């Protein structure tokens, strides 16, 4: 099974450069970059645009700070700078839905928004839909219906569904289907998702 992502290893870069100790640490995989470890601390990276700015993003109920260039998308900021990885990078062009997050409750492709634009807004990823250890009702139904194969599209579908229902709790089956028509599931689990929609909307169209 999968190691949870937030296994935090508070390792600084310098200790890494000393070698073997870190190799062993690295071998424990995943989620090793603590929020405190500054990104790209080596040198001010060159930038063809304006330089990095300090920004604060409210993500899944936490205020996260980082120094981010204005050209960085919200998706890359979440994933590469803040180690929030539930939203997936698939096309980076607004064509697949895998990076869907909620911005103040509305679904947005995180690859199609700049991180600086998201300041002051409430950003929710699939991870943040949980209440503590409890699954969000939509996650609960996705889980019960076992509606995934590889699961890579799942966080995007879950957040897209959450947005529709947040906006319109009476959404019909067809509304749900339309709401996810910008999301691609290459494993073709649409049939299982239809079952999820049926349950969510209290029976078909």
């Amino acid at each position, binding site marked *: 099974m999968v190691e949870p992502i937030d296994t935090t290893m508070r390792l600084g870069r310098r200790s890494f450069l000393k070698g073997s100790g870190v190799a062993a640490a690295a071998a424990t995989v*995943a989620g090793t970059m603590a929020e405190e470890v500054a990104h790209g601390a080596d040198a001010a990276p060159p930038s063809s645009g304006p330089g990095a700015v300090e920004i604060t993003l409210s993500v899944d109920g936490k205020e996260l700070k980082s120094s981010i260039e204005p050209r960085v998308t919200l998706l890359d900021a979440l994933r590469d700078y803040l180690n929030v990885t539930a939203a997936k990078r698939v*096309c980076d*062009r607004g*064509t697949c839905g895998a990076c869907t997050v909620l911005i103040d409750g509305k679904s947005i492709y995180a690859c199609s928004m700049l991180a600086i634009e998201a300041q002051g807004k409430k950003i929710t990823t699939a991870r943040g839909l949980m209440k503590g250890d409890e699954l969000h009702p939509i996650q609960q139904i996705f889980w019960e219906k076992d509606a995934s194969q590889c699961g890579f599209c*799942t966080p995007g579908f879950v957040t897209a569904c959450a947005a529709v229902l947040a906006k319109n709790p009476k959404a019909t089956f067809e509304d749900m289907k*339309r709401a996810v028509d*910008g999301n691609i599931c*290459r494993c073709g689990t649409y049939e299982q998702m239809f079952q999820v929609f049926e349950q969510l909307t209290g029976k078909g169209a």
Partner: protein
Amino acid sequence: MATANETKTSSYRVIGTRPIRHDGVDKVTGRAVYGNDVQLPGLLYGRVLRSPHAHARIRSIDTTKAEKLPGVFAVISSADIDPHESKMAELGEGSVNLQYLCENVLARKKVLYKGHAVAAVAAVNAHVAEEALKLIEVDYDPLHAVTWVLDAMKDDAPILIDDLKTEGAPLPHSKGPTNIAQHIVFSKGDIEKGFAEADVIIEREFKSATVHQGYIEPHVATALWSPDGHLSIWASTQGSFTCRQQTAELLALPVSKVTVTPCEIGGGFGGKIRVYIEPIAALLSKKSGRPVKVLMNRADVFESTGPTPGSFIRVKLGAKRDGRLVAGDAWMAYDAGAYPAGIIGPGCVCVFSCYDLPNARVEGFDVVLNKPQTAAYRAPGSTNAAFACETVIEELAEKLGIDPIEFRLKNAAKEGTRRPDGPAYPVIGLVETLKTAKAHPHYSATLEGPNRGRGVGCGFWMNAGLKSSVTAHVNGDGTVTLVEGSTDIGGTRTSIAMQLAETLGITAEEVVPRVVDTDSVGYTDVTGGSRTTFATGWAAHDAAIDIVKQMSARAAEFWKCSPDEVTFDRGLFSSKSHALTFKELAGKIQETGGTITGRASVEAKGVGATFGTHIVDVEVDPETGKVKILRYTAVQDCGRVIHPSYAEGQIQGGVVQGIGWALNEEYVYDADGRMRNASMLDYRMPTAVDVPTIEPVMVEVPNPRHPYGVRGVGEVPICPPPAAIGAAIYNAIGIRMYELPMSPPKVCQAIINEASAK
């Protein structure tokens, strides 16, 4: 190896049930760690420079400016990797030519397709890496490109690989350099005689476009080359051991110096077996002294990783008036892509695999051309072949006035039928799927309305066995930790755990499956060939038998009797006077010698082939040529079904991909050999609004050679859809389609042609 008899019980308790996958919560919450979720301290971002030309000689590569850009830690090109001789390395499911693999990873003297990797950069962030790529100066000498398979076979075609030798059957007229990498000939009986006996003969030509596996997770690899010389890789791969083998061979390292950790994988479908960026990440890490993550973007995935072949196929079939097929002849040319790929092999095996043909000949060509090197895609080679053969079968049935399923039943392959490539079938279930389809209410339902039609089609896949290892540790609380090397792409943690649980008489939830790195489990071949539930499940069964043996011995110690007096049935150990459940005994094992670990490594023989018969209703819009799927029923022999939901999910998923292949998906090339639609917007894969409810109907013809009767399930459902949809289109508008995809422009054009011919 354990035999079926050891575990045979009249009814199963776990097999055939639908437990929720062990990693379900991780998947719905986004906690699961996929390749691009791996973070390491000091991580650098790697990006690859790719050829803008489909075919060119590389005169020089100058990386000096890129190296000087602040924030850049390493720049590499083919100069950083030693060349390999043309030598084959075994990869379990197939083998790989190291010279070609090496040149595909980083082009040496020539680029052979647009997107061919030329150099790579590791930098402090992705933006800097991308800026650095622009500073690398490559001097190209562009050459003519060829992207259509028949053109690449011509005498005056541009030659991609100067010293390419044709493998396999000799070519009668071959002289000088060639793009034909392999020539296959299978034959059975005497086709001249066969066709002479035929009352009806139909011969047709078929084209299909290149399509991509389309897994939504792009390729990603993170490498850490430690100062002590050990290389660790976190990859999105269908096979961690295959990844280790290829990377070690390319970098001339012993396999023991390379550890590959398979991350969660966002789909593969055959396309994540060959390495592309793992060696690049490793070299960048070595040069920079840092961990490096190389991530592809979506255009890279389309342009630089294995699509599956475009093809040209000619099929000729002859039948007697009574509906008996007497002869078949197939001529098949498949794209190899930039380097030999061999998907033609299974294509040739599959083309007539559904039928009992007394006389048959199959000739096939693997043809090198200026596209990315092709790779497996769900029943590789079979879908192209099925589209051709099944369409001719439909036409014959129509001409003979026989119901298409009845016609197939008259000629269906069964136990003992010898395929043109040689083997005779053991127990198979094609006839059962045909009968089930015929009796299904869908087949007899009335279909009213203009421009609507129904079609059927069959498909075959041979499935794979190969090697798998597991170890299983009994925990004191009665649970069992199952350690395995099979990447879980669609629920195999659970389908394997269920076979262990069944054998031990515990629940699926009491098994804790772990997919681990290459140092932590025995050699395991790729998750591919529909083999994982079959072969790794078999290993889990054998490991459970090992546990039962050891636990019986412990029970005997407790009860002071001989181990022979201990029997085990459905989770209960007993002797004449005592009994303990699996859980009770597990709680005592620490008192009697400590932990019990069961282990098994199998090289699974006795693979069971799978067949499917699909029924589809469509409606064609005569104005736009758009085809809408109204209803879909997919009947498949699944062997014994371990987890019905997952088997159904595989069938539905395969059909969705088959629908995409049939109706929309294609690589569009311009005259210079550049792909013009390398994005998810322009390469259209089906979404929720494109697919109807797909009803899977599972027929269970257990594989007598597997302990639980398992056959592979995942691949065959992609094979029938294009042919079945083609037949439905014909029945809707009276026009036969001979080219994939049957996209709106092509259907529209066919309608216009038909009208002007009248």
